């Protein structure tokens, strides 16, 4: 790891100032992606800004929304009584990320800000139509994910909370890489209170997580796994790598979506 500077501000304003003052500052949340990246010398920040002292963890209910602090770790979400009772899909998703040690440190805010194309949380945030509260604004999920490892966040913007609406029913199923547990294809299907159905797919798209209009239309009319078979999954725009070809990922999208519908 290259030499760098580490600071641990005690409030949000100080963290933003530290980001603005650094030439290339990086926010350090749980560090489960950033620290391995630094060790491989794939990132060379001149300053690491640890945001663990800003009071950004914690899970609460407000009106009909579940609000999860950005620094809540995956194990917190997995074991939260509130999440288990109000949005069980999210607790199960969190419990399937990485391994126990990753879940003890990795955070929801870090996962979203990183927007790894194979991460689990982006699929849930998109399918559940969550919104991302930052230090300056509230961003709808549909506007947040802008490409592989790209988000709508400005350089000096910090995620503080994620707001999840309660939904009628939702399920997330992933076909995980057996070694890394990252999704080779992960599908979140959610039926919202107004009857609309959203389907978000992670692990497959060259531009990261995406919604699938064809699957949403089919499931809107008939929320049964048989409806998925009638949808053609175009493999252009899907990733091809050592783990799976685009063609295979297209096949997995059909299969995993059916499993997710069956799990609703």
């Amino acid at each position: 790891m290259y030499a760098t500077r580490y600071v641990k501000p005690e409030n949000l304003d100080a963290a933003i100032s530290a980001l603005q003052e650094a030439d290339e500052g990086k926010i350090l949340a749980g560090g489960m992606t950033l620290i391995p990246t630094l060790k491989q010398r794939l990132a060379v920040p001149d300053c690491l800004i640890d945001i663990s002292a800003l009071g950004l963890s914690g899970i609460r209910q407000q009106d009909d929304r579940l609000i999860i602090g950005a620094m809540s770790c995956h194990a917190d979400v997995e074991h939260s009584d509130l999440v288990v009772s109000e949005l069980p899909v999210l607790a199960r998703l969190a419990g399937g990320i990485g391994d126990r040690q990753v879940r003890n440190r990795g955070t929801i805010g870090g996962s979203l800000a990183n927007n790894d194309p194979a991460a689990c949380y982006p699929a849930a945030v998109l399918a559940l139509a969550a919104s991302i509260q930052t230090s300056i604004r509230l961003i709808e999920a549909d506007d947040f994910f802008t490409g592989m490892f790209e988000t709508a966040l400005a350089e000096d913007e910090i995620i503080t909370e994620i707001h999840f609406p309660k939904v009628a029913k939702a399920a997330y199923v992933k076909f995980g890489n057996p070694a890394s547990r990252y999704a080779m294809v992960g599908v979140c299907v959610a039926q919202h209170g107004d009857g609309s159905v959203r389907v978000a797919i992670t692990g497959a798209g060259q531009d990261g997580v995406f919604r699938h209009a064809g699957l949403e239309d089919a499931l809107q009319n008939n929320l049964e796994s048989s409806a998925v078979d009638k949808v053609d999954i175009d493999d252009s725009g899907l990733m091809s790598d050592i783990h799976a070809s685009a063609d295979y990922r297209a096949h997995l999208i059909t299969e995993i979506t059916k499993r997710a519908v069956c799990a609703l």
Partner: protein
Amino acid sequence: MAQVTLHVNGQTTVHDIADNMLLVDYIRETLGLTGTHIGCDTSQCGACVVHVNGVSVKSCTMLAAQADGAEITTIEGISTGDELHLMQQAFHDQHGLQCGYCTPGMVMSAIELVEKNSDLSEEEIREGLEGNICRCTGYHNIVKAVQSAATKMTS
């Protein structure tokens, strides 16, 4: 350079360290506690697992500076004098190790696993140890050791 204060195995340590020093390097190089191993150094193998404020963490994927003020327990801190921790004893009794390289991390992960849920099925133990890789045993005796220790730790 920054000064960090850690409470490691019940003893308070204060050192000036480089900002980019990993917790595992602090434990091994600065404190000389070499029971915590570095296996893969890429966050996969779990040989470096220690407890930070009671939860298991891969110490190769955390900066020492992040642990400032924390209570750290390493493999050296779990026995009482010459008396092994029940989990260590169970690994010995059940032949839960061959080369032993992964064992400190396995034991630390297993202790946290059992402390949080004493009624573990074999599947839950295997899932709970997902973050620890062993190249020798095929895991069978490790699972037996954790099952055995779980019974004793809760009785």
